[in-house]
């Protein structure tokens, strides 16, 4: 993308539409973070296209003063792929829920990732279907009691990060609605990454799944229950920065600093490593036992589909003798009739 730089404030990205999420819904904070990130990107406003599916979260594009498309359930990855391939100059974003992206939209989601189309996917994970009023989703924890699982679910949830890596994902990050600063930073990094970037955003649904991420967001617990990963930095966490992650054979282990263990023993985060082994383990960490990883977990450079396709077009165009339709329809065997 090469465009003039421009100055915006977050509110330049707010549309005139009434925001209709429940008071207290985590989506409000994500909207804040996104408008901040957009303002900081300094890309002309008209270059943004936000594509969403259906769900509470998918109402998002209405509230942004950019080009927006609130499409149908599960199809945003495909629509966004079409937008980006048609016009690679745009900054294309997909807004989606855990149901929208991983239930009905699962196939388009993994294929967009596999192709590495340069779109930025913000995946709102509230572990529930919000808009349809509280059925379990593919990320609901096993045993979750919901409207469609009155006796608890019997199925294991997807872990979005794991699925992304399984689908050849090159960029995966995780943030949480309550941490607007971190979210802003991560959305920006996602935008700057070339290729599909998936940002799982842990989000609280106050109505149908209140408190699912409570330990990770509450002031008293969050520092012990999460770790914010940063490129090149040791994986240290805890209220008193006194815990860290180390490798124990092929597995991760939480250790306490001190007593002979110092910062230099702690694993250093490398999101850019191509081998996904450690990223997979980091994405999989969960309470109890491990902190939940926030930050950019994986960020590996690779050619994007949209660039490769357009590159191929440019090359073939240069080499061809067929310059237009008249040329084309006259190639091969033709004859004159008089």
């Amino acid at each position: 993308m090469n465009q003039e730089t421009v100055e915006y404030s977050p509110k330049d990205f707010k549309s005139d539409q009434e925001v209709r999420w429940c008071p207290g819904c985590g989506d409000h904070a994500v909207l804040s973070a996104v408008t901040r990130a957009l303002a900081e990107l300094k890309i002309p406003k008209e270059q943004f296209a936000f594509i969403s599916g259906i769900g509470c979260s998918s109402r998002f594009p209405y509230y942004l003063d950019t080009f927006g498309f609130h499409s149908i359930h599960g199809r945003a990855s495909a629509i966004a792929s079409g937008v980006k391939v048609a016009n690679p100059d745009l900054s294309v974003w997909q807004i989606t829920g855990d149901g929208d992206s991983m239930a009905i939209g699962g196939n388009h989601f993994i294929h967009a990732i596999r192709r590495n189309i340069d779109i930025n996917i913000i995946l709102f994970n509230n572990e529930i279907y919000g808009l349809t009023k509280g059925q379990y989703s593919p990320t609901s924890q096993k045993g979750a009691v919901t409207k469609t699982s009155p006796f608890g679910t019997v199925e294991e949830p997807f872990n979005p990060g794991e699925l992304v890596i399984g689908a050849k994902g090159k960029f995966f990050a995780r943030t949480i609605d309550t941490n607007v600063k971190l979210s802003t930073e991560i959305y920006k990094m996602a935008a700057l990454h070339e290729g599909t970037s998936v940002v799982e955003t842990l989000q609280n649904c106050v109505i149908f799944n209140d408190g699912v991420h409570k330990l990770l967001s509450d002031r008293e617990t969050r520092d012990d229950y999460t770790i914010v990963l940063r490129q090149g930095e040791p994986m240290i966490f805890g209220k008193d920065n006194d815990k860290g992650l180390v490798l124990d054979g092929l597995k991760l282990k939480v250790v306490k600093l001190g007593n002979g263990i110092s910062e230099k023993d702690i694993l250093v985060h490398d999101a850019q490593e191509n081998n996904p082994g450690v990223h997979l383990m980091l994405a999989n960490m969960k309470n109890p036992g491990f902190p939940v990883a926030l930050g950019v977990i994986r960020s590996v450079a690779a050619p994007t589909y949209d660039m490769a396709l357009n590159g191929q077009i440019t090359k073939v165009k240069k080499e061809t003798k067929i310059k237009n339709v008249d040329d084309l329809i006259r190639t091969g065997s033709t004859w004159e009739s008089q």
Partner: protein
Amino acid sequence: MSKSERVIEREEVVIRFSGDSGDGMQLTGTLFSNTSALFGNDLSTFPDYPAEIRAPQGTVGGVSGFQVHVGHSEINTPGDYADILVAMNPAAVKANSKFVRKGGTIIIDEDNFTEKNIKKAGYESDPVKEDKLDDFNIISAPISTLVKETLKDHGLDPKTVMRTKNMFALGMVYWLFGRDLEYTDDYFKGKFSKRPKIIEANSAVLHAGFNYAETIDAMSPVYKVSPASIEKGLYRTIDGNTATSWGLLAAAEKSGLDLFIGSYPITPASGILESLAARKNLGVKSFQAEDEIAGICTAIGASFAGDLAVTTTSGPGLALKSEAAGLAVMTELPLVIVNVQRGGPSTGLPTKTEQSDLLQALYGRNGESPMVVIAASTPSDCFDYAFQAARIALEHMVPVILLTDGFLANGSEPWKIPSVKDLPAIKAPLVKEGEDEFIPYERDEKTLARKWAVPGVKGREHRIGGLEKTVKGTVSYIPENHENMVNMRAEKVARVVSKVPDQKIYGDEEGDLLLIGWGGTYGHLLTAVRELRDKGKKVSLAHFNYINPLPANTGKILSSFKKIVVAELNAGQFVKYLRMEFEDFKFYQINKIQGLPFTCADIEDECIKILEE
């Protein structure tokens, strides 16, 4: 008898090449067609092959056929019955002998008529006896042996040698028609430019076949079909899928837009995706999607972003696209959906032709979701209707379904190559940069089309989506707004009638019987009506390309005939639609649901029955 005595000058001849799937019959047929076209004949072709890639050798299920109808005057169908059948094995006789005209010629490779093969084909004993072919002119040649003989010094392995058998048969047929071998020799040179041995072998066998035919005495009759007196101009043969993709390319060029195709392969539509994927030199963005839903959705995204967007499929794929097609209706984005119909329901008869997706195209979406539907009627006019579909989509800001079918997609005919400059201009209502408020669903007074503001255009940020909206694009549950928008979307489709030419009639403007057809049956119905008129019947043909909206004069036409008969390759879908739209008429029906085109004879018989009723 000397050759000249046996020459039969014919208006038209039908020839059918048939053999095992591995015998190269599709290529043989194509080469014969192209040579005839070069010679100046008009023609029509019909490939007919099994759904299996290679069904077991020697069985009826594995027979692959290619029928060509060549003529001195206008040819509209591949013909009901073959004058000449090339049958490389007993199974090919079994599958095809009932389609040979009484007294026609059957060329067989006698080396293949072993007891084992005869059994495999499902015969007990001699096929000629069992199928009562004694009246036919059977030319039995030891083709395999002669080919081996021809190539014995070429240093090729036996498999490669046997692969040239089809060229021996082709050589024989060329001699029968007095055709030049040059085109085919040239073809070998182009195709195998890096393998001179193969060029030589094929050429040698082709000529051997030609010479053999000249040598043997049994060879009769010889057919002479003079060049057709067709309009002056530059010609080529073209099949329906290629014509469709070229029509779309022409529309892209005329509208100044890039062409985007988002599709998932499916028989018999894959050819369009394949042909456009090869057109990166014309800037085509071809996207092979993970499924049909992604096919249409990527196309909708590309349309939102300002491309001429297309998705192509066949029946089951159209079913999968129906939810997203509704989104295109709701968001009023231009989109061309090509549906190459095949035998249904479900997976049905995937390699066979049928016209049974019409009601699905018209009504297969939730809610009130009207869509423009048009249909091509010959392989070459797929070009015109694809162009027209794109033009309507872009100028009226609507999704358009173009229906073709397996018969058109794979069939071919000569096509007078047009000049792009002679095609109508296409002007999409694109919005330029600006500061004034952009109102997404504000409509053009005449067409009711909304404007197209694509991402990247400064000052035109706006939101669209699948929920009902006000003119300004705000989500709205207001009852009156919904009713109004539903009506607007319907009226917008109705107004496409301004681009629909009046329905033409072949024959007189009034009469005893109006035969109605639509889509790919054109050639057959036209031929039948011609014959009926030759017999003095007051029969005319109205063959529809525009289904929704119908041409403005449709009602008037219906009221000008005593009886109306609708002929379709389904259980009666267009006739249902006509009944919905026109309460005052009685419609007769002719239907065939066999995965095959009509035969002209059947149509004639049915019409005569109805006339006499």
